[in-house]
């Protein structure tokens, strides 16, 4: 499977993502510059974390109009896989490929720490190997408070589009376990067609056993589990 990691001015998790896909998962990876208009036949496009365009105006707002985005939307609309992590999730929400928006954290602080997540639907390319147990994955964001209107939230529930919720280490989804004030503790969602994914936590920062936590690797294992079978 060929992965493409898009680099915007201000992306800073691109090399972590390339490292995991290439060195840990042993997949073909290319970096794509945001001004490129050729996706180089990648099967799976990833928008990494960072601060594209300095988070000017709103997180992800300016990146959404980078030249590559037109091709990325086309790729997604043709059923191609796309995933956004952190700033990438914000960009995908701005583009409308994913529902909702990411607001300033309730405490108005940049939060950088390990949190726990529980997979809500396992019926996706990126969550099929998760169990009901909580996993530990870091977050690092100032604007991660997931928001969508009531109707959209209901659709997310009905269509099983909620990938992950913030939970405690035992998998209890509580207010205390919600680091940023996200509605329904939502940490990640997918689109209705289940080919576009977004999440605020950073699985690529927890995918190498050498770093003492490989809970994030389950996400990449899930992808390969489906694709290679």
């Amino acid at each position, binding site marked *: 499977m060929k992965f493409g990691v898009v680099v915007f001015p201000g992306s800073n998790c691109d090399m972590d993502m390339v490292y995991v896909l290439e060195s840990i998962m042993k997949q073909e990876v290319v970096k794509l510059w945001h001004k490129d208009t050729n996706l180089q036949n990648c099967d799976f496009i990833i928008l990494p974390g960072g601060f594209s365009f300095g988070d000017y105006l709103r997180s992800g707002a300016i990146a959404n109009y980078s030249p590559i985005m037109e091709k990325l939307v086309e790729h997604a609309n043709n059923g191609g896989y796309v995933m956004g992590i952190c700033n990438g999730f914000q960009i995908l929400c701005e583009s409308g490929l994913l529902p909702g928006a990411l607001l300033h954290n309730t405490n108005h602080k940049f939060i950088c720490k390990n949190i726990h997540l529980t997979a809500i639907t396992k019926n996706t390319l990126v969550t099929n190997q998760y169990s009901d147990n909580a996993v530990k994955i870091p977050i690092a964001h100032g604007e991660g408070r997931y928001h969508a*209107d009531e109707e959209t939230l209901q659709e997310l529930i009905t269509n099983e589009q909620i990938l992950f919720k913030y939970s405690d280490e035992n998998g209890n989804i509580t207010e205390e376990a919600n680091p940023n004030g996200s509605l329904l503790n939502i940490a990640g969602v997918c689109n209705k067609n289940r080919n576009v994914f977004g999440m605020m936590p950073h699985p690529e920062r927890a995918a190498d056993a050498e770093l003492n936590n490989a809970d994030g690797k389950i996400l990449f294992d899930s992808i390969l589990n489906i694709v290679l079978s």
Partner: protein
Amino acid sequence: MKFRAEIDIMPLKALLDPQGKAVSASMGNVGLTEITNVRIGKHITLEVDADNKEVANTKVTEACTKLLANQIMEGFEFTLEEA
């Protein structure tokens, strides 16, 4: 013709505005307990070339809906004057 727009972008009323809330809370520290419900948004000015005010209005609205504001979380209003 050139027009100048003064645009206000505010978080939707239903949404918590943590920045505004923090500033509200600090009003007491400067002895202004009468002040409550501070909400903080953005003020943007820009110039637009257009044949008339109606066209300028359409262009600025498009700028707001496409880029300047995210209507899931923000509302916008603007005034338009000949520059």
